[in-house]
């Protein structure tokens, strides 16, 4: 890159800049680093007052196996998986179709339906709380994973449709016209022409929705209670209440709860960022 202003400045300024940045970065991540350190310390370190020093022994395996084998965390994690995966699949299936309809066809109320989806995207979900809870109760889905999945799919469809429509709009329309001229039926156009082209958008959306749903706490509190259906976000609060003074277990539990979306993010970073950029800027 030709003009690098920073390279033209004096040597000392460059050095301070280069060294201050890592320091700032460590400060930024200090909360995470501290609980990571706490989570591998033995219980004894906390009673003897060795909070910030070097761990007297590494008890990472003991602490984490306690979280996995002696608490309800595995149940909560499993619940989260059973809530998140069907929601992601359902949202993508639905929004691929609606995005296709809004992006490809031109009909009179196209714009209004599109606005409805935009509005649905921005409505504060608090306003839905009481009616949705009553609806879920009446359908007999209160405190079930199915109830949570159904609601999440319905609510996320607005955002997903917006996302898909914008992506499909950017595809070369000539491809679809060419297929139509060849006499390919609409269903086949969708399945064999548009869907393969949408793969990057599908991946980005899947990663994005996965984190949204996995991290949801509001609806987990409103629509479920108890270990048989609550996801891990609600589970971790009861876990921490249970082990109130056991800092090493609380830290380990927090890390376990946060790990799946963070791992997802690092594995699928490209898609994640592509998704955010597409969703926000378009």
């Amino acid at each position, binding site marked *: 890159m030709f003009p690098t202003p920073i390279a033209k400045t004096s040597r000392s300024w460059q050095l301070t800049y280069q060294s201050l940045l890592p320091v700032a970065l460590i400060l930024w991540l200090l*909360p995470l680093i501290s609980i990571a350190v706490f989570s591998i310390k033995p219980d004894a370190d906390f009673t003897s007052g060795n909070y910030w020093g070097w761990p007297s022994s590494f008890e990472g395996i003991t602490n984490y196996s306690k979280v996995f084998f002696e608490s309800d965390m595995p149940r909560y994690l499993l619940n989260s998986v*059973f809530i998140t995966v069907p929601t992601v699949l359902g949202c993508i299936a639905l929004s691929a179709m609606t995005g296709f309809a809004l992006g490809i066809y031109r009909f009179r109320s196209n714009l209004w339906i599109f606005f409805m989806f935009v509005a649905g995207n921005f409505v504060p979900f*608090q306003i*839905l*709380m009481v009616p949705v809870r009553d609806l879920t109760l009446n359908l007999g889905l209160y405190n079930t994973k199915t109830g949570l999945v159904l609601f999440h799919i319905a609510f996320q469809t607005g955002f997903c449709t917006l996302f898909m429509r914008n992506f499909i709009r950017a595809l070369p329309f000539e491809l679809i016209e060419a297929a139509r001229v060849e006499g390919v039926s609409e269903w086949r156009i969708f399945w064999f022409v548009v869907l393969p082209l949408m793969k990057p958008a599908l991946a980005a959306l899947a990663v994005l929705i996965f984190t949204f749903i996995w991290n949801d706490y509001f609806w987990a509190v409103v629509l479920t209670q108890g270990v048989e259906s609550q996801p891990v976000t609600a589970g*971790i609060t009861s876990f921490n209440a249970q082990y109130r003074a056991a800092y090493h277990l609380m830290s380990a539990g927090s890390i376990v709860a946060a790990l799946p979306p963070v791992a997802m993010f690092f594995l699928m970073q490209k898609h994640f960022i592509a998704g955010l950029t597409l969703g926000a800027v378009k």
Partner: protein
Amino acid sequence: MNPFLQGIITIVVGVGGCIAYFYFSNLFLDKVLFPARGPKAGQNINRANQIRPWLFLFPAIFALGLYLAYPVVGSFVRSLYNRSGNDFIGAGNYIRLFESPEFRTAFFNNILWVIFVPAASTFFGLLAAQLTDKLSWGNIAKSLIFMPMAISFVGASLIWKFVYANDNDIGLINAIRAAFGAGNPIDVLQIPFWNNFFLMVILVWIQTGFAMVILSAALRGIPEETIEAAILDGANPFQLFFKIKVPQIMGTIVVVWTTITILVLKVFDIVYTMTGGNFDTEILPSYMMKFMFRDDGLATAVAFVIMVVVLPVMIWNIMQARKEMR
């Protein structure tokens, strides 16, 4: 493996159902309702094409209607009734709200959140995007700054509980204070007024990554020539940043700002898990949770107030979207 099997069956039935609905409804339209043959073939094709979009849209509109349109209206109606939902009391709930000092605190705090969090997140995001732009390890730095974004609000709050803990040993802030010689630990979450800002810091910590990612993409999109020209004309790095780069990405900055603003109006997790709304840190979304299962009338009234506050931002966004659509 009962729940596992159940999960797989749900997925298969759900996705299979979607595809089957889509396939068979199109088939029905093309072959049975308006077949593309016989004397009226041309007319039939046109008719089928007019109906087809609605086939694609129907499931989503139905879901959105059931879970979105109906609840918005239902909430408003419910907020006009009393606690048990039997008696119509008109604006009674709203009057009660505006008379309660707690609601006013929550409203005031919410205004603070809406001003501070988007501004700080955008500022730090822009700073991080600019500072890491030309670095060799910039991408690693960006990933690390972005990482909090992947953690749930609850998870982040629990992590920050360690930072704010009222204890010289566990609490990071108090540990630092102790290292500088301050004796007794303080509970930063109980300092009046400023405790709000300590809570906001958590959300800024999460959202900075989001702002940074979007803004750094925008910075990359700035035409190189404008920067070269400015440097040749002798602009210093600050002028280059504020007079050349920032004006060119203003549109993106506004988008980031409004996106975070809307998010701020919905976030309740942080206050709910950190202080439970005590010590005057209540904001509207968490204030509403107090009435959940207790007084639906008041809860929906609070929700509607939030809705009214969000409305201008929402309308502005829709207008932007419309402009974009030409």
